[in-house]
């Protein structure tokens, strides 16, 4: 199941297109479709290579760009020509409108940040004993209140999202170094092979961190990496033993 949408902070295909247009300093009314399409597709390929899930909307936009591009290649006096203008004009109108709303939302966001700094207070407690009529409460309204409060706090926003959707293991190099050092001490002179440091359920992130930790240790804490030829496992040994 997919999750956390924004790929590198892009809210959607229009957002990505606006980014490319700004990056290339292009006039929004005069977009070189062919170049933008190329850059757009290559961005999607990058995400794909990073194993990121690409939302359907990005793919639909890619198809739209390709269609505009292919129609542009047709001779102008073809019957389809009018249609091509429509496709491109529609895209530009969408981009222009989206850009305006992006500006509005940034403006409202700034105001929101300021208002978040205002503190309101609860009613002062004054005992009121009259009219103890039984209350009729709406459970849906209570639920809404609770949900609203949770959403206000980032940490609770995560707490209410089912955990399997936000799993993101974090490894840091220092901890890894400690771990590897301990393992090397245990193995003594024989040393360790790289593959022995990797457990069966290891994630890509952890492999990368393990490697970074080893490189750091080569520089700072006297270990030696030995590899007989490329693309095979390598041995990790402590240099300290030689000194001893």
């Amino acid at each position, binding site marked *: 199941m997919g999750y956390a949408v924004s790929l590198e*902070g892009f*809210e*959607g295909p229009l957002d990505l297109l606006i980014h490319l247009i700004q990056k290339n300093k292009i006039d929004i009314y005069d977009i070189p479709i062919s170049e933008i399409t190329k850059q757009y597709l290559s961005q999607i390929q990058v995400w794909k290579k990073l194993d990121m899930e690409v939302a359907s909307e990005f793919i639909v936009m890619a198809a739209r760009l390709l269609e505009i591009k292919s129609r542009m290649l047709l001779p102008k006096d073809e019957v389809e020509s009018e249609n091509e*203008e429509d496709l491109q004009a529609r895209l530009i109108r*969408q981009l222009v409108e989206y850009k305006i709303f992006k500006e509005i939302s940034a403006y409202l966001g700034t105001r*929101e940040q300021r208002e978040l700094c205002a503190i309101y207070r609860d*009613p002062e407690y004054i005992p009121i004993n009259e009219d103890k009529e039984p209350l009729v409460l709406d459970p849906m309204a209570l639920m809404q209140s609770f949900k*609203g409060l949770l959403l206000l706090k980032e940490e609770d926003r995560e707490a209410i999202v089912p955990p399997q959707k936000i799993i993101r293991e974090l490894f840091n190099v220092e901890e890894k170094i400690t771990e590897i050092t301990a393992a090397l001490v245990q193995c003594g002179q024989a040393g360790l092979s790289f593959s022995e440091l990797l457990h069966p359920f290891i994630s890509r992130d952890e492999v990368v961190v393990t490697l970074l930790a080893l490189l750091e240790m080569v520089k700072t804490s006297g270990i030696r990496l030995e590899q007989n030829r490329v693309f095979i496992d390598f041995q990790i040994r402590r240099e300290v033993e030689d000194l001893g």
Partner: protein
Amino acid sequence: MDSDELTGIIEGILFGAGEAIGLNDLCRCLDKSPLEIRFVMEILKQDYQDKARGMRLVQIKDTYQLSTKPEHYDYIREVLKHKQSTGLSRAAQETLAIVAYRQPVTRLVIDELRGVSSSSAIQRLLDRGLISDAGRLEAPGRPILYKTTPEFLRSVGFTNLEEMPEFEVFSQGKQEQFDLNGIETNNKQE
């Protein structure tokens, strides 16, 4: 009861109530005209501009409420160990901007404008009480219409919707500049 006394009483009511109090309620309970109450509110607003004051008067439509001044937040947070809320995600913010300027508006229009599905963003805004249902559009499927709430006005510090900058302020003439003829011309130049 003279004007000063009335000011004191109203400040006391707003302080004691904490929550927003309607002009009507004040008129009824104090037996005063809306004009008299509004006059006092102006006095209070003025008073609170003094930097020796720690509150400000927040007006949303015809309701009044006191809050602390945002510029004092860092000190207040320190003493009260207040955890600041993060504010809306960008998806929710974009959706809210569209509802604010296009209300009443359907989900379909929002989706088209953003180029992505906005259903979860809409749900969040509903949960936060920033938007609400505004009936249904008389069209096939009778889709739900959304509008902003008074809570939205509070969250961005406006007294009413009319206080929001005109849409044209943001489009900066882009709208006029944009017409299909212009694009066709551009195209032929290539």
